[in-house]
């Protein structure tokens, strides 16, 4: 296959995966007696009707993309960070505490300082899991999930105790939230009358930064090598353990920053339920975006749309917003399945043949130069040695017989 055909094939597979996910979603909706087409219509078009809808999509895409960028760093470095949710909460706490403690500072100091504190809070939480993995071989999936619980309880404790707005006690309402943060710690709104905030700029800038970090610097090279094959990296003189920890610190920092940005731009005080599952959806966004910033940015917009659309279905199509969770699950499954089709050259070849048969085109017996084929050994168990054939010198004098 040439490049154009490959891109078309990839696009086709992704489209098929989305279609399959929507089909599964449709089955569930039919089961609860909802109007399938109306629901999808609402999810996919309602948010795009006006400027407000579009800005709300972006408001959701900002924390999603930040979390997903962090996840991509961790996954690329061979560590599965499932703990973005907890890291976000720790980031929010650190950000809010810094802002509350230093209200008198001018904005150009307080805002960066408190956002950095948020990143540091997340980095600390992610770093624990990284340290445990690197030094004691503790499975990072277990440790990050458990740290999520601890973070959630710690967050609730602080919001209902030490960090609680004293005003709530005076009036007796007792809402678990902090005081309104000083204006110096706020991110500015970008569009008058909407909630779209300057976090968008931060997310886009960091997406570029992550690309350069991972694919253009020596640090990124080390992290990716450690992630792709730790043994080879270690043998090549890379301190794998150190880079595991660095990756988790960075990954946590992105999640912490996502939380801090969300509070600084939208809520302006720490409240309960703020992470809204962004920490988990961010994992889906990262995978959907191919663990690459160029994929993550559009993917986070798509999921922003889904999340907002799901909220709207509750109102206009009378379908519970939780439906979007079902869709998310279905999307993960179909993406994982689609990868098999995307990366397996054997399946690719089969599909090409099938299409050629349908459209009556001739397929050469040996597609292109034989040397173009180096089947991925991970996918093709038996014939992988066939790669050697690539060298074909063309001479095959059939001696003997």
């Amino acid at each position, binding site marked *: 296959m040439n490049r154009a055909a490959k891109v078309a094939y990839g696009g086709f597979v992704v489209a098929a995966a989305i279609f399959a996910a929507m089909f599964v979603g449709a089955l569930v909706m039919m089961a609860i007696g909802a109007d399938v087409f109306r629901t999808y219509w609402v999810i996919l078009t309602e948010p795009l009707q006006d400027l407000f809808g579009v800005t709300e999509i972006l408001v959701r895409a900002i924390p999603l993309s930040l979390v997903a960028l962090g996840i991509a760093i961790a996954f690329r470095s061979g560590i599965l960070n499932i703990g973005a949710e907890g890291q976000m909460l720790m980031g929010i706490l650190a950000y809010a505490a810094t802002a509350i403690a230093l209200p008198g500072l001018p904005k150009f100091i307080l805002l960066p300082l408190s956002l950095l504190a948020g990143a540091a809070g997340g980095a600390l939480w992610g770093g624990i899991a990284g340290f445990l993995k690197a030094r004691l071989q503790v499975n990072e999936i277990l440790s990050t999930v458990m740290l999520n619980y601890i973070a959630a309880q710690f967050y609730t404790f602080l919001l209902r105790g030490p960090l609680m707005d004293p005003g709530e006690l005076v009036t007796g309402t007792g809402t678990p939230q902090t005081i309104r943060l000083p204006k110096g710690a706020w991110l500015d709104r970008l569009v008058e009358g909407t909630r779209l905030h300057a976090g968008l700029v931060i997310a886009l800038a960091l997406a570029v930064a992550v690309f*350069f970090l991972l694919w*253009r*610097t*020596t*640090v990124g*090279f*080390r992290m*990716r*090598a450690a992630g*792709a*094959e730790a*043994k*080879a*990296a*270690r*043998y*090549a*003189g*890379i*301190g794998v353990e150190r880079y595991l920890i660095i990756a988790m610190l960075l990954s946590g920092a992105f999640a912490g920053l996502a939380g801090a940005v969300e509070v600084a731009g939208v809520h302006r005080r720490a409240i309960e339920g703020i992470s809204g599952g962004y920490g988990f959806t961010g994992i889906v966004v990262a995978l959907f975006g191919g663990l690459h910033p160029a994929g993550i940015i559009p993917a986070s917009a798509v999921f922003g749309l889904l999340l907002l659309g799901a909220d709207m279905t509750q109102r206009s199509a009378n379908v519970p917003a939780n439906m979007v969770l079902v869709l998310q699950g279905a999307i993960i499954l179909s993406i994982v399945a689609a990868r098999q089709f995307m990366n397996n*050259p*054997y399946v*690719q*070849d089969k599909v090409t043949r099938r299409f050629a048969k349908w459209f009556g085109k001739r397929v050469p*017996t*040996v*597609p*292109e*130069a*034989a*040397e*173009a*084929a*180096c*089947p*991925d*050994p*991970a996918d*093709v168990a*038996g*014939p*992988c*040695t*066939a*790669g*050697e*054939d*690539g*060298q*074909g*010198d063309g*001479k*095959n*004098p*059939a*001696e*003997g*017989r």
Partner: protein
Amino acid sequence: MRPEPIRTLELRGITKRFPGVLACDGINLDVPEHSVLALVGENGAGKTTLMNILMGLYQPDEGSILLNGRDVKFRSPNDAFGHGIGMVHQHFMLVPNMTVVENIALGMKETHKTFGLDLKQVRRRILEISERHELPVQPDAFVWQLSVGEQQRVELVKTLCLGARFLILDEPTSELTPQETDELIVLLKKMSDELSIIFISHKLHEVKALSDTVSILRHGRMVFRGNTADHSSSDLAALMTGHEVNLPRNECGDGCGDVLLEIRDLRVRSDRGYMALDGVSLDVRAGEILGVAGVSGNGQRELADTLNGLRRAESGTVLLGGKQLLNRSPRDVIDSGMGYIPEDRNTEGIVPSFSIKENLVLKDFAAGTFSALSFLRLGTIRRNADNLKKRFDIRCPSTDTAAGSLSGGNIQKVILARELARGPKALVAVYPTRGLDMGAEEFIHNQLLERRREGVAILLISEELEEIMNLSDRIAVIYKGRILKIIPGGEATKKGLGMLMAGVMDE
């Protein structure tokens, strides 16, 4: 209900395509009753694909399989078993933490009762088979306790217990010691009185010793078939590679300089905690190849690991050009000029998902040549890859290809290119040609000898006696973590080395 015996097996015009590769191109093959056919060819010639078709793992795109003259179709390995065809794979398909009886019972469906297994019946069958074919096995031993040779026998007994009357052996000797190989050949020779065998190999002396007829595959085509007895090994080698192969030899003697790599009283524990190296001392001079012969598992891995900073030693000294390297980090070792061709080329030698050009700078990407202010210099990295690709004849579509998708020989060339281009003072090469075909082997041997001439101190760890004897100035035999003896390369004989490798001192 004994199914009819397999008198003839024929393959007619078998063609199989993989993406971009014609793996088998109209192959004809026939095996008469009670005969041994050797199927020979380089890596990637299509041998394994052909056998997988015969076992029903793949469906051929064209062609047919005839059994006793009748057309058969194998849709799965079970179909093939059902017709009495059994295969012993190169990598054994045994469950290590089960006993031999349990392993064999896995495949014997008739012993599976609703609640439990009829292990008595399995044991009877095992004893019956092992007696008839003189294949001693211990039914109650756990597979992990057995040596590779014993495991091989279990595989054979298993295949026969499942009712195989036609055996396919995929490179059965690749993991065996020389002695075990000889035993296996005698055994198979006897078994061929009762059944037919297809024997896949690229070791020609085994082919000569065992087979009646030989078929040679090259690039998916059958290029030769004939009686083994009528052709010499070197004829067959030429047919296999398409050109005369002369594995280069080390013309021993002069050239050796001062001691460059000095190993003294090295004591290292294995992963399981016992002393894997128990006081090993070796000297490698500049411009010398020191071969370390031994059956794998006698401390070679630990030796290579320790020399390269990947494993901590209990005590000892490792000096490279007078600089102490014991228990230093891999980075320190690399920076002092040590090159390393690791045993496991797919997971230690390269990062499989990285491109070829990235793998070629795996050790040097942080050096000034390939990065500036910690940003990678992509242009230089690409030019470096293009140069090395030419110099080391790495065959790949482009240097952006994932290294893991290359064939074994080309992966080894990538590793060799990286290690040698760094201009090492010393080189540790572990099983550098394991599983490679003769063309690649020739290339790698030539490269090693060339480095020797340039004054590199080379420590060659191998269990391939021919390789060791062809290349080494001196040969050290390692057994159970000790150096048993060091002999000059010219005085070594296969028999003597084989005895020493088995731990027998002949004085």
